[in-house]
């Protein structure tokens, strides 16, 4: 990019066209009928947060009063985004502390209980903060319920490629929903999978039933973006477009993503092995292996999490979430000691 010496002019409100094309294709696959038929409105956004906020502002304007259901727990900023956008929200059950897994029945019941035509915020892959994802079969059932209740699915895709190591596999949930002809919101972020955190690069996508509608929706998304920041920052968009547009760079990226996802899987395995070796009680720590992505919900309570910090100098969030991305294999043993101590010796 330095050599090309491109100019620094304003992007259009919807962002860099090459980026918008690349990001939609990454999400759905270049030959997806949704793309071929032009049924998707894509607007470059300020990473995941900005893309979520733009979608939330659109929801507030066009579906005033409609509630968004968010998972319990979910990324903390989801609530702030919806609050500041003036969109009401409530929670659906998600994490089951008994199994340290998915409360699937609770999730379905809460979705069925909600008024028809609600919006369901789903994590496309690598749920944050739990690391617990539905299986493919479960995704299909979730889609059934959403269609039955005439809800709209709203995907937050912040880890595509980062979860399993495969871009396509991680987009599975979104693609299955799109294949059913469902109208969707999808917010994307390149902070983690391309490591572009500080460049703030992502996208708001709305998948709809006709290209004409997609155009109209796009124009209204732009109208919401203009008084927020006029047009999005160019730098990150150019990086993504360059990486995706150059086969050599794209291959390099795929390989690096495999490496990153691979390292996390290794560290999960190591932590698990250490916990099993050190904890003689027979407690089932396998949830660490079953969870996916950066985060693991350890099941530690707030006071136990505080013990981790105060006694062991392990910094984590109070909900019991640890980021495996921040863990080096050399420290797995120490972390296992800390977890075992906190779990058994602190109420």
């Amino acid at each position: 990019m330095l050599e090309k010496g491109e100019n620094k002019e304003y992007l259009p409100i919807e962002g860099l066209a090459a980026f918008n094309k690349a990001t939609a294709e990454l999400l759905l696959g270049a030959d997806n009928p949704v793309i071929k038929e032009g049924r998707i409105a894509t607007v470059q956004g300020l990473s995941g947060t900005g893309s979520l906020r733009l979608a939330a502002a659109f929801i507030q304007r066009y579906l005033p009063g409609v509630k968004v259901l968010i998972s319990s727990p979910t990324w903390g900023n989801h609530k702030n985004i919806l609050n500041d956008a003036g969109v009401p929200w409530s929670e659906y059950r998600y994490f089951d502390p008994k199994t340290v897994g998915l409360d699937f029945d609770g999730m379905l019941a809460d979705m069925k209980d909600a008024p028809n035509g609600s919006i369901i915020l789903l994590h496309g892959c690598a749920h944050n903060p739990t690391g617990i994802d539905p299986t493919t079969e479960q995704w299909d059932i979730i889609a059934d319920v959403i269609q039955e209740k005439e809800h709209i699915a709203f995907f937050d895709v912040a880890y595509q490629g980062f979860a399993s190591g495969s871009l396509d596999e991680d987009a599975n949930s979104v693609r299955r929903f799109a294949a059913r002809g469902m109208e969707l919101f999808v917010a994307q972020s390149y902070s983690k999978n391309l490591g572009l955190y500080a460049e703030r690069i992502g996208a708001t996508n709305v998948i709809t039933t006709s290209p004409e509608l997609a155009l109209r929706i796009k124009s209204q998304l732009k109208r919401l973006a203009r008084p927020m920041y006029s047009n999005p920052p160019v730098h990150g968009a150019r990086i993504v477009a360059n990486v995706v547009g150059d086969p050599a760079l794209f291959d390099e990226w795929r390989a690096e993503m495999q490496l990153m996802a691979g390292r996390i899987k290794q560290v999960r395995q190591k932590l698990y092995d250490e916990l099993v070796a050190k904890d003689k009680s027979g407690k089932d720590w396998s949830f660490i292996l079953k969870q996916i992505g950066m985060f693991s919900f350890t099941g530690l309570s707030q006071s136990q999490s505080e013990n981790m910090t105060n006694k062991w100098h392990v910094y984590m969030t109070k909900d019991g979430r640890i980021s495996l991305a921040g863990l080096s294999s050399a420290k797995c043993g120490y972390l296992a000691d800390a977890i075992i101590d906190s779990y058994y010796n602190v109420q």
Partner: protein
Amino acid sequence: MAYRSRLAYLLSSPACRLSAVKSAAVTGNVVPSCRREFSWWSSVQPAPRDPILGVTTAYLANTRPSKINVGVGAYRNDEGKPVVLECVREAEKRIGGRELMEYLPMGGSARFCELAVGLAYGEDTQVLKDKRVASIQALSGTGAVRLFAEFMKRFQPEAEAYLPLPTWSNHHNVFRDANVNQHTYRYYLASTRGLDFEGLKEDLKSAPNRSVILLHACAHNPTGVDPTPEQWKELSKLFKEKEHFPLFDMAYQGFASGDTQRDNQAIRIFLEDGHQLACAQSFAKSMGLYGQRIGCISIVCAEATEAATVKSQLEYIARPMYSSPPVHGSLLVTSILTDSDLKQLWFKEVKEMADRIIGMRVALRKNLEELGSKHSWEHITQQIGMFCY
């Protein structure tokens, strides 16, 4: 595959939509009364084209060699090409391939803010020494104004905003989307193509006390008409009487006169008079960093603790909007302002841009007069900055 419609109640017929929305509000259930091949969004109309940015789109689509774009406020060289400043290219080289791309804090780069505010207020200004200025990095000028609008809505919900007539069209959008009540005050006088100073003063006097008044620090957009220093001084006194809050939008520092410390004169006058003011700054034009979206919102507070509190609240507004601002532009600006050679180079380049525009004004006026126009074209050279009204 047959696409099953969702949300039939938001169908094209307003009657359908209204009855179903009401019904939904009562029962909590959507009544799909007007079902057909359908989408949740069929009632969504195309948004009006942005009056400014739409011009460039149309220009780009035109294939005539004779075309001219004097629409968007983006600087061009004499061949009509966008310009990347030398100081910026040099800064790019220095920061290219740097190691880390970690998130900035929510408030952006502290160093960048320090430098930006020093530039805007004058580095020696007392309020900076007293640490009374709350500032965070913002998404260029638009983002800075939006943050302020949200902030005033949250913490002074009764206060209303007064915008000059005319002003940059997006100002109206920003305050509207932030749900702040807005009014206009007289500014441009068509008969003189100059400032309607009497009208301006009258309108600010009749506004309720403690209103937020949007002021263009220099190079008023779109008119190019700026108050004189004496007029700024008079306004400062008027603001004191009315306890009005000055919100300066400064998008052209250096670009107007060619001298950054002359272009911020209005702000310095108000600071000397002890106003608690705010400034929304953009580096889009003055450093040619349009697409980087780099700016700053700063608010002068009563004392240092208040400034820290205010800053935390600004961050709290930014977090659910975009979490943290983009880093690249902040690195470029910081690079330029902290290196004395690059800084001097920037001063030189910004003066060149300002001079080219002043030269253009002179040439345009001269050409019009030479063509035998009986009309007065004085205003072309009296107005300042990018735009001519």
